[in-house]
Every structure is written in C-alpha cells, then in structure tokens.
C-alpha cells in the first residue's frame, strides 16, 4: 500500500507520541532509578541491601519455620539447622495468654463479646451514613461502661479480679478508656486554656504543662506507689483503676493541645457571628465552635491515640501483663526460654497492624476533610 501523505496547515500537526524510551516501563525505570550516575549507585546499593535482607528473613520467618512443637528442643529438632528458623509454635502455645492474660478460661466468652461490642462501637462512630447513627453514638458513649461491667463482673456475673486482666485485652482496655474519658476532659482543658478568665487559664496551663513535662512512667509510678496517700485513709483501690486514671489524665493534656490547635484554626468571624446571634458561651461553643474545631482536630486526635496505644506497653514496668509483658514473662519459662526474637516480632507485628491501620485512617480523614473545605 502506498503511504498516505497528508498535509497540515502550519501549527495544525497533531502531537507526535513521546519516544518509546521515555514512557512505559523503560521510561519509568530510566526516570526513577537510573536518572543520574549517583542514582544508579543508590539503586544498586538498595538492590544489594534488599537481596541480602529479604530472602534470609523470608526463609527464617516462613519457609523453614516450625508451627507445631511441644518445647524449644522439639522445635529445634525439626529444623535443618537448630536455631536457624523461627519457632512460631511458642506463640501458638501461648496465644490465649497473649489475648486474654490470666482471665479465667471458662469466662473468656465475656472478653470475646466485649471485642464484638467494641467493633460495633467503632463502626457506629466511624461510619457517618449508617442507619440509626444517633443511637449508635449513644451506644458508643455507653460502651465503656457496658464492657466494664462485662469484664469485671458483679450484678449477676461472676466477679473477676482485675489483676487477672492481661494481654491484648488489657491494651485495648487502657487504650479505649484513655481515649473515651480523655476527650471530654481534654476539651474542657483546651477551652480553659483559651478562656478570658485569668485564674482558669493559668490553672489549665499549669495542669497541661505539668503533665506534658513529665514522662508517663513517672505518673504510673505515682499511681502504683503514692496515689493512695492522696485519698482518705482506708480507701485503697484497684491498681488497674489507678493506672486508668493516670493514663486518662496524661492523655487529656495531649488531647487538650490538639484541640487547642483546632480552636485556633476557627476564624474569629465564627465567634463574632455566634455572639451577634445572641448565643451564650455554652451554646456558641456547643453549636458553632466545637463541631468545627473537633472536626479539624480529628487527625491529630487519632495520632495522639496512636501514641497512647503504643504507650500502654509501659504498664509492664509496674508489673501488669500487656502483650509485651506476657511475652517477657513467657520467656522465663525454661521449656521455651531463648526464643526472644519470635516473641518480640509477634508483639511488634500486633502493634504495627493496629497503629498503621489507625495512621492510614487519619491520613484518609485528613485528605477527605481538606477537600471538603
């Protein structure tokens, strides 16, 4: 066939496709991996690094690992090279401990039920277009109290001592209590810090800066050693409750700062508009200011919560058994001792999944909130 030749007017010629070496896989590699000599070296180094890390790790953790055994020795006997691979049988053997701590085995359905209720509460808070969301929110407010009753017992349920709580369950108890009670306290502190009344402002600044200035572990020590001195003689109460109070206080100070940031992001016109409508302080804040301020501080609140969730591991220092504490305690068992890597990696993966999930959620929220405005 004869080639069709066309003539174009000046400036009417359609764009030619880019050269093949600049698009597609080749173009991508050229641009992203090999653009300069320095970049080529970096790419090679990175490849070498990955090659020397990933395959051995994969072999250790998956291919050669042992999933069923009765003891460390039995585990190692199953491997080609003793100690050459992961022994996940250790984790499987103790998985109940990691989830429930020492919660009585026949009552564990109560913990399971609490986890289900927790999922329901989270769903009803996070999904905005769920049918009956109003009831869902009330349920979320009531949730800590319902599960508190379910886990501790009383009123018809068998009582369980809180020193038997442990594992992932304990992490969730501390985390959820911390976030649900610190939010209202944090809002009050943030409002107080922005108050025009000097006494209230100074008081709130003192509380916030004191708590933010000291490490959580010092507060936990106070909870475990000297909180009872502050109470009337004879009132001794539960260590878990004392820890929860301290964690809530600690968290409130950080939440307060996040919400203060949100409040500062509200333009003055909003306050003035509320005032000109004749709204009182309470009404203008509840109806106009806080809904907007809370909305823009949600990502910050989630990030603070991630920090708190990770900080729950600190309770192991005052002798409570969170997943890390359970892992450390189980390492003392002579039958399994020496499998520290497996324990730490398992606990690390648990925290990574939870925290990474939450941070993704907060990023997603941030994006969504920013496009709406």
């Amino acid at each position: 066939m004869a080639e069709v030749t066309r003539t174009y007017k000046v400036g009417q010629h359609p764009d030619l496709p880019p050269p093949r070496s600049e698009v597609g896989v080749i173009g991508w590699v050229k641009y992203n991996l090999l653009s300069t000599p320095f970049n080529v070296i970096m790419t090679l180094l990175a490849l070498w690094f990955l090659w020397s890390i990933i395959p051995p790790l994969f072999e250790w953790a998956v291919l050669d690992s042992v999933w069923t055994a009765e003891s460390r020795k039995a585990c190692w006997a199953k491997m080609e090279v003793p100690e050459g691979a992961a022994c996940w049988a250790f984790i499987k053997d103790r998985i109940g401990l990691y989830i429930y701590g020492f919660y009585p085995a026949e009552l564990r359905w109560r913990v399971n039920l609490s986890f289900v209720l927790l999922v329901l509460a989270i769903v009803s808070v996070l999904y905005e277009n769920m049918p009956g969301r109003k009831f869902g929110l009330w349920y979320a407010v009531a949730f800590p109290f319902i599960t508190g009753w379910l886990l501790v017992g009383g009123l018809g349920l068998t009582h369980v001592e809180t020193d038997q709580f442990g594992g992932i369950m304990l992490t969730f108890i501390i985390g959820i209590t911390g976030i649900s009670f610190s939010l209202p306290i944090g809002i009050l502190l943030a409002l107080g810090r922005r108050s025009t009344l000097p006494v209230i402002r100074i008081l709130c600044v003192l509380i916030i800066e004191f708590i933010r200035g000291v490490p959580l572990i010092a507060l936990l020590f106070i909870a475990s050693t000297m909180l009872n001195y502050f109470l009337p003689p004879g009132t001794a109460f539960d260590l878990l409750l004392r820890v929860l109070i301290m964690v809530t206080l600690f968290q409130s100070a950080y939440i307060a700062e996040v919400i203060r940031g949100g409040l500062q992001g509200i333009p003055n016109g909003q306050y003035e508009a509320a005032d000109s409508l004749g709204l009182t302080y309470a009404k203008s804040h509840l109806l106009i200011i806080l809904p907007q301020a809370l909305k823009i501080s949600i990502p910050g609140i989630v990030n603070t919560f991630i920090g708190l969730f990770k900080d729950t591991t600190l309770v192991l220092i005052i002798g409570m058994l969170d997943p890390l504490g359970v892992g450390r305690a189980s390492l003392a068992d002579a039958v399994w001792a020496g499998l520290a890597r497996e324990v730490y990696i398992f606990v690390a993966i648990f925290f990574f999944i939870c925290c990474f999930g939450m941070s993704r959620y907060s990023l997603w929220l941030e994006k969504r909130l920013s496009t709406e405005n």
Partner: protein
Amino acid sequence: MAVNSETVPGTRNSLTRLWNNQQARSVIIQIVTVTIVFALLALILRNVVNNLEAIGKEFSFKFLLSPAAYDITFSPFIEYTSRSTHLRAAVVGILNTLLVAACGIVLATVMGFLMGILRLSRNWLVNRMVYCFLEFTRNVPVLLHILFLHGIIVTQLNPPRQAMNFADSFFLSNRGFYIPQPVWEPIGWIIAVVFLISVTFVFFFRRWAKKVQDETGRVYPVFWISAGVIVGATAVAFFATGTPLSWSIPELRGFNFKGGLAIKPEFIALWLALSYYTSCFIAEIVRAGILAVSYGQTEAAGALGLTRNRTLQLIVIPQAIRVIVPPLASQYLNITKNSSLAIAIGYMDVVATVGGITLMQTGKEMETMIIVLLTYLVISLVISGFMNWFNKKTALVER
C-alpha cells in the same frame, strides 16, 4: 407615674442581675474556682499528713544524706561507690538521663535529617525502602525496640573472649562496646583554652563578616576561614605542647576487658533504640519542612543567579528551618521523656536510681517522686525555653 420596680426586667432579683453582668460573673466564677482548687489541695494535703502519720513516716529529705548501699555500674562523670549517699546516686541518675538524652538527640537529628532527605529522593527504590523502615519503626512501641535491642546485644553477641575485634582497639561483645579512651596529660588544658578562644573568635568573625556583607555586599569564605581557624589553632596548640595525649586501649584480661572506655549494653540499647525510633518522626518533620518551601523560591533564587549551594544555604534551609523547629523541639522533649524507659533494661537513669532503688530502700515515695518529677520538668522547661528562643530568632520578621 410611679413605675413598680418589680415590673422592670433586670431588677427582679439581685442574684439574676449579678449573674447577667459579665464582669461580676467572671469574678464569681474565678473566686469559686480558686476556692474549689484550694479546698481540694487542702483535702489532699490533710489526707497525706494523716496517711503518713498512720504508718509513722515523716516528710523529709534527710534520707538523701545517708549511704545508698547499692551499686551503679555506669557512672561516666563522677565517682560513685555503694557507700556514697542517696544524693550522689540521684546526681549520677540525673547525669545519666542527661547523657542518654543528649546523645539520643544528636544521633536522632542526624539520622532524621538523613532519612528525611532520602525520603525526598527521586530514586523510587530508595524512597520506598526508607518509607517502609519509617512506617514499621514508628508504629511499634519504643519500649519494644529498647527491649529487643537489649536482648540482641546481651544474648546474640559473643562473650568478651570471642568479641568482635575492630583493629585490635575496638571490641564489641555482650558486655558492651569497648573503645580506646583518650588520656590527657595535665598540660592538656592549654589546648582546651586555645580551642575555646578560637571558637569565640569565629563567633565574632562571623558577625563581623555578616555586617560587612549587609553593608557592602562583599562575601568572605566564612565557613573555610572558621574551620581553618578552629582546626588550625587547636592543632598548633596540640603540637606546641608536645602532643600531650595518649590512648588507653582496652585489653582482654580474664573474663572481661580492662582499660579503655566501656560503653555498657544498656546504654547502647537505649541510645540506639531511642535514636532510630525518634529519627523516624524527625524524618517526616524534615520532609514536610522542605516540601513547605515552594519551588518558586528555588526558581527565584536561580533567576537571581545564585548557585545551587547558595540557594540551599540562603533560601531553602532558612525557610524550612522555620517550619521544622517547633515540632523538632517536641521530639527532643519526647526523647528526654522516653529515656525514662531505661528502667526496663536496668540503665541507671534518674527514674531507676531515685525513683527505683532509693524508693524501694527508703520507702520515701513522696520525696523521691518529687525529685524525679522536678528533674523532668526542669529539663523540659530548658529545652522548650531554648527552642522558643531559637524560634523567635528564626521567625519571619514582618514589617
């Protein structure tokens, strides 16, 4: 016509009237708050007094002067034996806290800036690798990092006899990292003085050079002159005094090393774990800070004919620093506070000495916790004070 006072709104009830007056209301609220706070404090104080009386304890800091009777294996700055006082143990603890916090801040800053810049790399592979490391590290509790690292050092490294040997003078074993220790002869102070003088000179020289540049536009090679003066003067002093420096090299004697500087496994684990954990947060801060400087600034600098280095130095970094400093300060505070996790692996910081063993031995919960809290509050105040000063210095000056 006489108006009945009861029909006029606002004069109905003097209490309502008072409440509707904004000034009066704020005074009332504040008085009530102060009363409640002081009542609470008084109640707590009374409880404390009653409780202490009930178990026969008294509130005093006299225990600080009695012998501590416990060992602290890591006290690089001051002499400490088990016969020293609790006060000395407290000072050792505070110094150890400051040491690990300062070292952590330095390493975390270096690693954080490096990773933050790598995260901006156009190389997709490098970028993604750093991203994976960052995400994994910062979503795992720092306590776990500390315990894991400590576990690796203590159980996976060889005992001193089969220690990893670097050039016969650095030894890495499960008892710690042994490095050569510089030993100064008495005359060494002259070098320190010369060094300080040259630093002071450089400080004034830089101010002068900046003034000259502002007034006349003449640019001196400030960096090279400064570096030359400091290194040159110190080197001259070093050789003029006859190289008054020798090294104490660690040597294997029996079951452990003698001589040299011993860096204990607890310190290494805490320092490294705190550093790489915090550096992940710093990396994100640095990245955000650099991205916050719009590309137009770089282009404008290019249009003015500045070189690439001058652009970075004069345009990009000063603007990025302004965004970076406030969150960086809170990361420094976090390192300091997280160093209290030392107690989990037995590094003797202030929580482990005063808040741990001294508390156990003397039963003085109040007094010891007050010391611990005050220590952290003072450190926090100093760091945030410094950062506020720095922030003010670098903040945008608007006309």
